[in-house]
């Protein structure tokens, strides 16, 4: 069964873009990339607020 272990860090002091990295998942890195893409899209594409 798919298991994702992701490390989530804000990359700017203003809490703008988040950084997502897979760490120890049994899926490939594309999983975290896809999730990051979803977050950026939800953020209006700018990654900021």
């Amino acid at each position, binding site marked *: *069964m*798919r*298991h*994702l*272990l*992701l*490390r*989530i*860090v*804000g990359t700017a*002091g*203003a*809490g*703008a873009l*988040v950084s*997502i990295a897979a*760490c120890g998942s049994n899926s490939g890195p594309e*999983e975290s990339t*896809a*999730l990051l893409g*979803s*977050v950026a899209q*939800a*953020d209006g594409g700018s990654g900021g*607020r």
Partner: protein
Amino acid sequence: MRIFVAGATGVIGRELLPMLADHAVVGMTRSRVDAVRALGAEPVVADVYDRELVFAVVAAARPDVVVHLLTDLAERDFEANARIRRVGTRNLVDAAVRARARRLVVESISFAASAEGAAAVAEMERLAKESGLESIVLRLARLWGPGTWNERPEEGAEFIHVREAARVVYEAAVGTEVT
């Protein structure tokens, strides 16, 4: 999508629930029924240490996704927080399995904790991984923003704004296809 959120009135839950307005959300709370309702979810009252009750309320919710946002840090009691990560997680994960949820999303931490705290986090993550459910464990940096312990991020440390953290939880819960 049907989503069960444990820890619905915590700092992330308060940001997350309004984001889930297009879904059928049940928010578990020990007592804050009105708060859950105000956030747009259906409240269910349960203490995560009441294993049978947790099984019952999760089963009744028939969730596709179970979101674990349980912490016990209101009194800065790290022993209590370790207990909820061990015992509370076991009850919630077992209930999710019994209810045939398809996905489990778990709030974890990316930063160092005490030995006891780290062991509890490791246990929580292990329970998720070994649940047999599709699981997404989110190791979040320290939170800052409304309701957190930090009005702004500390220089030189890794932080994430609570709203951004909630957005990541949202995407983990509903943003990718549930297999």
